[in-house]
C-alpha cells in the first residue's frame, strides 16, 4: 500500500520511552511515519493534545504508559485510562474512527511489545487511509487585510464623537 500514515505517540518517560530506547538498542525496526513525543507521564497527556495532533495532520494518535499499578506517580496512568475512554466516545461522535486513537501499556522491559504494538497501530491506520480533514473557513484574505488597517484605529476615535458629559451620564445610568 502506498499510503504512509503519520502517527503521533505520546510515550511516558519512565516506561514506554525506555521501551522505545530498548527497541532502538536491539536494532528493531518500526516505520518512519511514527513520531514519538516524550512526556513525564501518560497522565500528562491532555485530550487537547490529541485533538490538536489530529488537527495538525496526524492520521493516528497513541498514548503509551506504564502498566496499571506501575505508574511512577502512583495513578497517572489510571487518569490517562479514564480520559482515553471518554475521549474515545467523543472522537467517535466527531467522526474519527476508533482505531485511530489507542492507549497501550508498555513497560520499560517490553521492547518487543513496543515494536509489536506500534506496527499493529501503523497497519490499522494504513487500512483506514488518511484522515481527510480540510481546513475549512469562509475567511477571505482580502477582507482580513482591510480589517487589519481598521483595527489600528485608536479607541479615542470613538469618544471624540461623544462629549464628555454624555459619556458620564451614560456611565451613571449603566
Amino acid at each position, binding site marked *: 500500500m502506498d499510503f504512509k500514515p503519520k502517527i503521533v505517540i505520546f510515550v511516558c518517560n519512565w516506561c514506554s520511552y525506555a521501551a522505545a530506547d530498548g527497541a532502538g538498542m536491539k536494532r528493531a525496526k518500526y516505520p518512519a511515519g511514527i513520531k514519538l513525543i516524550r512526556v513525564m507521564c501518560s497522565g500528562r497527556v491532555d485530550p487537547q493534545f490529541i485533538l490538536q495532533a489530529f488537527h495538525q495532520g496526524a492520521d493516528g494518535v497513541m498514548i503509551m504508559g506504564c502498566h*496499571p499499578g506501575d505508574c511512577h506517580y502512583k495513578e497517572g496512568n489510571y487518569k490517562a485510562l479514564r*480520559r482515553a475512554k471518554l475521549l474515545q466516545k467523543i472522537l467517535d*461522535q466527531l*467522526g474519527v474512527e476508533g482505531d485511530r486513537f489507542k492507549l497501550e501499556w508498555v513497560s520499560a522491559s517490553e521492547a518487543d511489545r513496543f515494536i509489536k504494538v506500534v506496527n499493529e497501530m501503523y497497519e490499522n491506520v494504513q487500512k483506514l487511509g488518511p484522515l481527510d480533514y480540510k481546513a475549512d473557513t469562509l475567511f477571505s484574505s482580502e477582507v482580513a487585510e482591510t480589517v487589519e488597517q481598521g483595527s489600528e*484605529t485608536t479607541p479615542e476615535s470613538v469618544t471624540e*464623537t461623544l462629549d464628555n458629559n454624555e459619556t458620564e451620564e451614560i456611565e451613571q445610568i*449603566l
Partner: protein
Amino acid sequence: MDKPKAAFYWCASCGGCEESLVDLNEAVIKVLTAVDMVLMPVAMDFKYEDVRKLADKEITVSFINGAIRTSEQEELVKLLRKKSIYVIAYGACSHLGGVPGLANFYKKESILDRAYIESESTVNPEKKLPKMKTTVEGKELELPEFYDRVYALNQVIDVDYYIPGCPPVPDVVKNAIVALLKGALPPKGSILTPNKSLCKDCPRQESKPDKLSIKEFKRPYEIMDNGDCFLQQGVICLGISTRTGCESSCINANMPCRGCFGPTDNVMESGSKASSAISSIIDTNDEQEIDAIMDTIVDPAGLFYRYSLPASILGKNIKIKK
C-alpha cells in the same frame, strides 16, 4: 457633533441576544439615544442598501449575534466588517458557534430532508426542497445558499471583541458598552468577561469538596437537589471549565452549568478540557467499572461541545458521518 453609529445584526440566532439588550432596562434607552443605529433588523426598518451606502469605517461598532450558515449572513457580516471600526461577536453563537453549531453533527442533506420531508407535521409528497433559484410567473426569485456547515463569526471575518453568553447577561453588556464609549478597551481579541472559572463565583462553591469523586453520573431530573455542588451530587456541571461573568444564572435557577461562556484564555477549547476534568474525578481504577460509569454519560460530544462545536479544535474541519 454626530453620534457614533452602531449596528446590531443577527445571523443564525434565536433572538435571545436582542432580548438581552432589553434586559438592560432603562439604560437601553440611554444607550440607544447615545448612538445612531444604522442596522437592527429586529426593531428597525433599515435596508441592506442603506448600509452599503455608508463610507468604510463609518459605523463605530457592529454587534453581530448568531452563527453563520447562509450566504446572506456571510455577505452581511463581511459588509459590516468593512463599514465598522469595531466588530463585536455578541453571544455564544457568534463567539463559538452556539447551539445552531450542533447542526455540524449532521450533513446538510439530512437536515433538509428532516425539515422538509420526514418530519411528522410535514406533508410534502412531491419532496420539494428549497432551491436557490425559482421561477414564478416568469420572474426569477432567489434564496440565499445554505452552507454545508455552521461557522463561528471569527471563522468568517476578523473579530475585535467577544461578549460571550447565551444570552449575554446585562452586567457584561453594560461593562462592554461603557468601555467602548470611554475608549478604555482591552487588547484586540479579548473576551469581555473575567478570565477565571465559574466555580470561583459559584454560590454552591462551599459545598464543593477538596477531592471530588463520582461513581455514577446522573441527569438533573434524576436527583433531589440538596443545594450542594452539582458535581458532588453526581450531575455533570461544566462550571469547572467555563468562564465566569454570567452571575451564576443557571446555578441560581438550580440547573448545572452547560458552558455557554466558553473557555478561559489559557484553554484552547472547553469541550475536551471539560471531558478531561470530568473523567479524572471518576472514582475507580477498574477498567470495566470505568466503562460502566462512562455509559451513564449520555451524548458526550453533544454535552461537552453544546455551545462550541464549530469553534472546537476538530469541529473546524469535522468529518460528518450521517
